[in-house]
């Protein structure tokens, strides 16, 4: 183990080579790229090897950043707010250090940035909708990074770009000075420096009459340079995506990549978050069957709804039961306590006719003397990984469902209550449901209605969360109690619960009565 080689040997079978000769993308440059600049136009596809794991992990990390960026937009955050919100998210998932930092990770960071961009480019080139969304978010990310870039390094990067602009010389400048100033709204303190391009390169500026026009040439003020680079980036990316779309069918040949790409593009529909053991609170509070009623105050709507239905009818259908059991497992309810919980929940009607009905919904043909034991118990234990099931999963059992899972599975039929209510309920019924769990803010209800109308279910849910925890969130932010990355968009019901629980018990957490650090929402890792 002496070898400190940065590039571990890669099992040839696990190689995920982005073979662009096959894809006929840009001209191949069969050299390991050296990344002179922090910023990248991504015009050249990756040429080095990566493992399948890196291929997927890097893609997921980038996806997380893009999803958070989109969430900022959905929530109408200002550019400054977005910048502040995104800084820790980018730092955590897709850090890009400046040359000046002399970080030893520099090359690796840039490689990850470069490769993950291309991974997602392939994953999202499939449909026009995905392409457009990806290009928009990548452009925003590019712009955000550009703004954070060091001045000298930014200039070096811009100078390295093959942009067709020409500086306006002194003679021409003095000839048109008044017009130049009037056209580009240059104030006394502004730099008197312009460059020329074909006006087609800056349609946005022409549209707003922010350039001087002379026979098809636009005279642009230097301050617009960053925006121009950004629009050029956007244009280049859009045409690159079109190109990728045309060659995408060939990607299917590589059957190791396509499931990953498919999963990534699915995740873009509803950002995915894996369940992590850390969303359990069993280490800070004892959870038993009797505490679920109280804890349900901290549940997200999908689970709270199931709990209410269970209490109301002493009955939950199979998929609801599965969803709820996995969730309870996730918050830290032990297998034994879970069995007690269900036994008690059903005991209320243990002798009623509904039990028969319940029984048939699971395994219709099973005749059972002790229905609970033979059926429910099996299901619960199955969920916990105690018996049966997929051999690969045994030991850990099924993992609690993420929002993505809930948002992409088949819609429940009548009488079933599983899934995400933001998606499965009609807007009117959703409003009623929200009001019944104490959401009374009319403005919020309108926003929720608007969001679900646009299929932004997880955004609606996050808004409800923020509203329900407003004072606590403010305190956490003002006093910087948690790292900002722990306040990212919630994408998992168990994250919702844990964050809610911690926020509502802030005093106890601080005094050391419960818990240690903040909640953790892991992206699928």
């Amino acid at each position, binding site marked *: 183990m002496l070898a400190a080689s940065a590039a571990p040997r890669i099992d040839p079978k696990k190689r995920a080579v982005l073979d662009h000769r096959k894809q006929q993308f840009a001209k191949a440059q069969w050299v390991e790229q050296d990344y002179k600049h922090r910023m990248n136009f991504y015009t050249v596809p990756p040429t080095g090897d990566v493992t399948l794991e890196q291929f997927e992990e890097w893609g997921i990390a980038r996806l997380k950043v893009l999803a958070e960026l989109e969430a900022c937009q959905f929530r109408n955050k200002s550019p400054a707010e977005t910048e502040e919100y995104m800084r820790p998210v980018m730092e955590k998932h897709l850090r890009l250090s400046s040359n000046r930092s002399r970080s030893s990770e520099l090359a690796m960071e840039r490689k990850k940035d470069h490769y993950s961009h291309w991974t997602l480019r392939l994953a999202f080139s499939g449909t026009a909708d995905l392409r457009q969304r990806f290009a928009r978010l990548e452009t925003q990310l590019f712009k955000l990074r550009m703004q954070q870039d060091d001045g000298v390094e930014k200039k070096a990067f811009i100078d390295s770009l093959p942009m067709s602009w020409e500086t306006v010389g002194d003679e021409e400048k003095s000839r048109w000075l008044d017009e130049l*100033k*009037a056209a580009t709204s240059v104030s006394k303190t502004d730099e008197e420096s312009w460059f020329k391009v074909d006006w*087609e390169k800056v*349609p*946005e500026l*022409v*549209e707003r009459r922010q350039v001087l*026009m*002379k*026979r098809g040439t636009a005279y642009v003020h230097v301050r617009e340079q960053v925006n121009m680079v950004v629009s050029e980036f956007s244009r280049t990316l859009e045409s690159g995506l079109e190109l990728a779309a045309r060659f995408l069918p060939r990607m299917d040949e590589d059957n190791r990549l396509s499931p990953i790409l498919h999963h990534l593009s699915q995740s873009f529909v509803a950002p995915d978050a894996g369940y992590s053991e850390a969303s359990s609170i069993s280490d800070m509070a004892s959870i038993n069957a009797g505490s679920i009623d109280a804890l349900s105050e901290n549940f997200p709507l999908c689970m709270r709804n199931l709990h209410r239905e269970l209490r109301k009818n002493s009955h939950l259908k199979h998929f609801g039961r599965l969803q709820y059991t996995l969730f309870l497992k996730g918050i830290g309810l032990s297998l034994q306590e879970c069995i007690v919980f269900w036994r008690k929940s059903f005991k209320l009607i243990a002798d009623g006719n509904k039990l028969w009905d319940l029984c048939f919904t699971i395994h219709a043909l099973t005749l059972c003397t002790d229905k609970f034991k033979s059926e429910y118990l099996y299901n619960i234990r199955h969920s916990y990984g105690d018996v049966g099931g997929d051999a690969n999963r045994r030991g850990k059992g099924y993992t609690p469902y993420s929002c993505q899972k809930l948002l992409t599975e088949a819609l429940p039929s009548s009488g079933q209550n599983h899934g995400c209510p933001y998606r499965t309920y009609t807007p009117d019924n959703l409003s009623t449901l929200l009001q019944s769990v104490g959401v009374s803010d009319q403005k919020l209800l309108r926003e929720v209605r608007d969001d679900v109308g646009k299929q932004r279910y997880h955004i609606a849910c996050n808004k409800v969360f923020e509203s329900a925890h407003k004072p606590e969130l403010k305190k956490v932010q003002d006093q910087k109690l948690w790292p900002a990355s722990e306040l990212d968009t919630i994408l998992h019901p168990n994250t919702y619960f844990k964050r809610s629980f911690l926020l509502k018990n802030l005093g106890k957490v601080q005094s050391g009565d419960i818990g240690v650090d903040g909640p953790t929402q892991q992206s699928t890792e």
Partner: protein
Amino acid sequence: MPHAVSPSSEGGSSSVREDETMSDAPAQEADVQNNAQPDAQDDAGSQGPGALPTTTNATSTRLEDMFDGDDDDTDEFSSSAQSKPQDSSQPAPRAAPKAQYSEPDTLRQFYQRLFPFRPLFQWLNHSPTPQPDFQNREFAFVLPNDAYIRYQSFATADLFRKQCLQMTPTRFEIGPQYSVNPRDRKTIRKASSFRPVMKELVFDIDMTDYDPIRTCCSKAAICHKCWQFIVMAIKVMDAALREDFGFQHILWVYSGRRGAHAWISDKRAREMDDAKRRAVANYLELLRGGDHGKKGLNLRRPLHPHIDRSLKLLNPYFQKEVLADQDPWESLQQAEKLLTLLPDKSLTAALQKKWDSTPTRTSNQRWADIDSVAEAGNLSTLDAKKLVEVKQDIRLEYTYPRLDAEVSKKLNHLLKSPFVVHPGTGRVCVPIDVRRLEEFDPFKVPTVTELLREIDEWDAKNRGLGERERAKVEDWQKTGLKPGYVAGLLKEEGRGKRERHEEAGAESMEF
């Protein structure tokens, strides 16, 4: 132009004209004949109930509008991407007086004897031999029964002419060149591969947009006084398109009743995508929406050089054509509008007082009153410099071109062809020579019936000439069209030809 934004202004029934914006779904069901010799009647009659028809029957109201000339406020028969709502369940149009110029027979003679198919072909084709520029170009026909058929295309000018003779469209429109022949669009496997690739940049100026500021006429009516607004608009637009954007091949065309169209066929203009078209349109557009004046123009100072140049061009027109001829603030009631444009309470109060005591004043006098009253110390919030700016804004509001900018923003938008007959007036949509813009008189533009009569008269008068001699004279040369009739088009076409040669040269250099 109102119809651009409110396609449901009439009738209220659902639109049956398909694909207003075709870029998204160009290959929708649109049953246009694919045979080279289509039969208009069959096509119009073939739509089953419930099917999405391409061809439509107009309601009776619309036919009346055509001839009434007074109540038609939405239709200049110019561009069709704004569809007219039509109710196909309506009974056949009531018998409306049919002017001779829209009789199929008149139209057939017009297409046979007068319509300049060859120059039009060359203008659109940019070459003497048929290119995709022409062959994959969409034409849309409006038939005498008001059926509207889209996605017509023609291999040659002659086939185009033949179909016009056969179908006798009351007018036709020109759309973009597509990536494949529009007639084959249904045979393409991927709908997205049928897309518009090129079209002239077009502008539409329509007098109805001037109704808030003209006093002489309204709606479809025009007179020599208000035609001056079109003259001003052409001057400002032409200057900007040439000086700012460097376009050279600009064809201005009389729209047949109360406006003008511009067709810019520079290669650079033809290749623009929607974002660039929108950029040009918004660069040129100053007065947006119907509600000008209330919020002010909000122009930043110093004025952008384009606005500044336009203002200099327009100042003389403001004095004569607006203040003197239109006299827009003559009555006290009209003068109130001027007061609302002056954001200074002391100034407006003083003016109001002055005008109440001397109620009969011309607009010229009232305009001068602003300065004299202001100089007498009646300014509270405005200073002298700001007042100058406010007055600049007002001049612009009363003179600056009012564009129907939507027409310009889409590559796939269709616009009425030059040289067709306007169905409402019978006038031929002739080019306007911008160098002699002042001489252009819309009331002297010949109607189709006049032209055909002139030909007949010439033939009768020159019966003495031999067969050979007579054949030397083209039909159009026998009419009042002689001076500069197709000159505009031919001139543009000639340039186009050179341009193509240059392009070919450039391309060959690349290899």
